[in-house]
């Protein structure tokens, strides 16, 4: 696992408050999950893959948006692992990375034209990357 990836892993673990090492691989989360068939990666895989630092496939997967956040897995997990919180943390990590794609000030003038509402320009300012 490279350094960047392990930082990201630590960040996801911190955001979720989940300790994936508590998992005993019983699979009750995935047995419980009502969105199982919609998900490419299933709740138990989230726990396992985060623990192993396989974050790229999770972050690219649509699974993070398919989780209903119903927390059935959290409720039923015998070890208190809380997989749904991990799914949400991965989702958050993706959103935060998107945040890093903010417009730079020099990007703005070329796209400003007469039809562009002023509000959009203000929004773009707000999204400036420092």
């Amino acid at each position, binding site marked *: 696992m490279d350094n960047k990836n392990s930082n990201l892993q630590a960040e996801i673990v911190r955001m979720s408050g989940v300790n994936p090492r508590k998992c*005993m691989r019983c*699979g*009750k989360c995935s047995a419980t999950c009502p969105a*199982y068939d919609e998900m490419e990666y299933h709740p138990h895989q989230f726990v396992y893959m985060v623990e192993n630092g396989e974050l790229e496939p999770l972050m690219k997967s649509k699974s993070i948006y398919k989780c209903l956040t119903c927390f059935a897995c959290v409720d039923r997990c015998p070890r208190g692992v809380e997989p749904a919180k991990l799914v949400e943390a991965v989702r958050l990590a993706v959103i935060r990375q998107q945040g890093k794609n903010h417009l730079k000030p020099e990007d703005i003038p070329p796209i400003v034209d007469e039809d562009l509402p002023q509000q959009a320009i203000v929004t773009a300012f707000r999204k400036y990357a420092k």
Partner: protein
Amino acid sequence: MQRIGVFVCWCGTNIAGTVDVKRVAEALKNEPGVVYSDNYQYMCSQAGQDMIKNAIHEYKLTGVVVCSCSPRMHETTFRKTAAAAGLNPYMVEIANIREQCSWVHKDMEAGTEKAIILGRAAIAKLNLNTPLTAGETPVTKRALVIGGGIAGIQTALDIADAGFKVDIVEKKPTIGGKMAQLDKTFPTLDCAACILTPKMVDVGQHENIRIFSYSEVTDVKGFVGNFDVTIKRKARFVKEDVCTGCGLCMEKCPMKKVPNEFNLGLDNRTAIYIPFAQAVPKVATIDPNYCIMKKTGKCGLCSTVCTVGAIDYNQQDEIIEEKYGAIVVATGFNPISMDKFDEYAYSQSKDVVTSLEFERLMNAAGPTQGTLLRPSDGKHPHTLVFVQCVGSRCEACAEKGKEYCSKICCMYTAKHAMLVRDKYPDTEVYVFYIDVRTPGKNFDEFYRRAVEEYGVHYIKGMVGKVAPEGDKLMVQASDLLDNKQLHIAADMVILAAAIEPDESARSLATMLTASMDTNDFFTEAHPKLRPVESPTAGIYLSGACQGPKDIPDTVAQAGAAASKVIGLLVKDKLTGNPCVAESNELMCNGCSACEKVCPYGAITYVDKEFRMPDRTTRVRRVAQVNPAVCQGCGACTVACPSGAMDLKGFATSQIMAEVDAICK
């Protein structure tokens, strides 16, 4: 003034590696009272002990300090050595410079300095030691076994066969326990009743065994060798010595709608009942919560039909007081309640059962005479789903379930699955497992047979939910190896419920002053080396009260507990601990503080005449300690506000001398 000899042990490199033993011996030479100081590689060896004996004679020593390992290890050894050389054994003090010094320090300088200080403290204490003589107490040659399951039965038989009297107290109307409810036993599949009931009969007929069934222990006083136990024999409203167990009363009893606890409520029994055909003692019991006569005063049918006149509606609880030398706890286990696991629909469908209920459904003496039928509609089930680890291996802080592995479920589930497939080849049997744990002789082979010969579908995964739909149970589960979610329309779901200690265990532990762990299992004196003894002297552990256990393990432990009890009961006298509390009557102000804190009931108050300075006599109330009962815990010495209570061998002055020596 004492003449003290100091002996510093190297313990090979265990001590000498981080403590300069020669410097310690040299430094302690100058302490008050020390007339001799030396060091040696292994003080506990024969040569080391001879060195102590020779020094005692040569230097006319009155006390010995050994700087070595923990007193738990060799205090007895060195006391015996001193006694052999004619010294009072309580004139030996151990300075622990291994566990509490050399093993925990890496720095030679610091380690040596600490060893000197510890040695100095022991010398300071020894200077105030006085010779002590241990008293002797007689041993009551009778054992009490609490619980009449297979653990209690085996322990009682083994003790009784050795020639000692044994009483079994069982809270149910019959002995037999959980094993009597089982169908077959793994890994050999013998019928449980066939191997248990002969033992029950042996217990019932043994001249050395008395059975107090339908009884409870309500109070325990005393100490090892001399326990005073109060037993409540609950009124069964049937004269036990008259009833022949013919069962005529059960046939005639009009109250037939009582949930049958022996079949776990899967069918009904009558208000007057014998739990099962092979019950010991085979005596009827009237359930006063359901008996029409007891509730309304009108009926009396059983009394009319009883040919021997055994029915006595006015029978009262009987209190028995008996003395015992040893007590064996064999209170066993129960499956946990499924209330908090409603994802498995246990409360919603009769066809979701626990494994113990399944035992009854498969048992020839059970509610279905051994034909497997669905409890809801009595139809033959085709698809059965077994769920393992229901409530076992949960997070420690979880509100539901237990942290430990219940140990027996993997094997009995394999047994159930195998038996179903054997009897009904038209069935599909699924077992959902997290891990299959089968350590034990012929255990893994047994599980593999279920898979390979009987075609049981073992699936690595867990059931997430069970939903009753029509006459089916829709089981949603995960298959982790295939990375699939499965949906099975099942006819029955069987839950391998975690097991927990019997609910009577905690109050019993309080009565016995025996320690328990956080799960209410009794704690053994040493997890490896003293597995069948409680840390409380005279209390022994047998079976699942100490931790989850299968029948082979239980029987082995039951025999081990019995041999420990026999080892105690063959002694005529027990040597007591002379380090007991003593009350200075002149200083005692009669406040009763010590009496209240004493956990052993060793302190009593007496009115005693004292001569006053003005030559009058006055009666004062003062504390007295029974040295045979006192265990030397020291609680009274702390509670005493006037300083009248002191502990022999650990007097306040001695402890303070140690503290002073350390702080010097």
